[in-house]
């Protein structure tokens, strides 16, 4: 939340940072080990610093992975549990970095499962989520019993989506207020990565134009997330993640999104003002670029969920 008169600065900072990122030269590619060792000497690196309030604003702007899952379902793609992070992987995650990141990944998986109304899988994933949330001391925001009850009846799908979404929203708010924004950012990054991974898996199977565009559009969210992660690069794990995402950004930099602006139209329907955006956006992306993104995401997700 912000007051407009005092905080118009952050969008300018965001724009400046994105411009800065766009102008970044690609970093040299080294082994993961070297990256981790190198990042220990973080004092010599200069990372962009943005205010806590600006971080809170950008966190709120990150879209929900549910939107992608809904698109995938409504494009006629069947449910596939094999593309999700196996629910018993949670026991492998013994650092807060992996716990927060995979809590986000499991959250996106749960959203996908709920959209397809697969209550048995939902219950398995809920258990893993509760464990990771407890280990990060945010389990109190996860209403496990209510969710479990709702998941056992397919008529409760709307309530289930609402409760799980608000639980994650409450965790994010709590982490931000407790000055644990780094964990909040990792959760959001995990959720976004998983939604992109699911999209890539669907793309590999069906090669559908709509999914291809959705993958390309993630350029905008990637910019936001890297801006957030850049703030915490003094932490070796986050520096590693940032460097990996930079490889992805190098591909996204070649994708062009052009918007043609037109005045919207409006009409009142049943007391609701309906606004139709007449603008159009055109995405210039090649199959080769999408294939490169698919490959990078595949490799990165394997490292993060291992």
């Amino acid at each position: 939340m912000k007051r407009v008169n005092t905080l118009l600065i952050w969008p300018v900072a965001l724009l400046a940072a994105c411009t800065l990122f766009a102008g970044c030269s690609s970093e040299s590619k080294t082994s993961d080990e070297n990256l981790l060792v190198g990042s220990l000497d973080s004092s010599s690196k200069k990372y962009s610093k943005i205010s806590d309030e600006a971080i809170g604003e950008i966190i709120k702007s990150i879209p929900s992975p549910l939107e992608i899952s809904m698109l995938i379902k409504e494009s006629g793609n069947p449910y596939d549990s094999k593309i999700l992070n196996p629910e018993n992987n949670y026991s492998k995650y013994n650092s807060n970095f992996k716990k927060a990141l995979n809590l986000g990944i499991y959250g996106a998986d749960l959203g996908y499962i709920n959209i397809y109304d697969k209550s048995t899988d939902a219950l398995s994933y809920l258990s893993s989520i509760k464990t990771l949330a407890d280990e990060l001391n945010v389990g109190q925001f996860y209403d496990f019993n209510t969710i479990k009850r709702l998941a056992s009846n397919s008529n409760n799908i709307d309530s289930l989506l609402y409760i799980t979404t608000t639980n994650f929203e409450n965790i994010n708010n709590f982490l931000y207020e407790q000055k644990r924004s780094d964990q909040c950012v990792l959760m959001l990054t995990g959720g976004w990565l998983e939604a992109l991974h699911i999209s890539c898996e669907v793309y590999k199977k069906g090669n559908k134009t709509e999914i291809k565009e959705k993958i390309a559009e993630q350029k905008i969210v990637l910019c936001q997330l890297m801006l957030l992660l850049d703030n915490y690069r003094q932490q070796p794990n986050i520096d590693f993640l940032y460097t990996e995402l930079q490889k992805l950004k190098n591909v996204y930099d070649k994708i062009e999104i052009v918007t043609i602006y037109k005045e919207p139209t409006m009409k009142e329907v049943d007391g609701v003002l309906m606004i139709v955006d007449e603008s159009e956006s055109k995405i210039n992306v090649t199959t080769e670029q999408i294939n490169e993104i698919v490959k990078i995401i595949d490799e990165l997700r394997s490292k993060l969920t291992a």
Partner: protein
Amino acid sequence: MKNIYTLLILVALQVVVLKGHAQCKTDECVAKISSGYTFLKTYQMSQVGDQLEYSYVLSKDTNYMLVMCNGGGAQNNIIVTLYDSKRKEIATNQDKASGKVFPAIAYRCNATGIYYLRFSFIDKPECCVSVLAFKR
């Protein structure tokens, strides 16, 4: 006697604190989302000022609904204006000709990008909550 005064002061302080951070009930606002939409996000405005602003990445070919609620029954004292990534005004829930304020807007997005939601208030309600939902 001294203890009673201390207690009264503490109660009074708590009332002031609670009033300053009054929160509208999100559930009641979510119930006003039209059928077919899926809940996405809450904008809980506990300290209603002159104007408040949030941003969100909206996606192409998606319908969004934004419902505004305050503590009371009427919801016509919250004005929201939607801006695109270039800060161009897209729409507002207040009809500029008649002055009528709509408690909800539905927006069909045709261009993915960062959008800004700016809230302003008539008579400054005690609290304000807005919920965002979507459907394909």
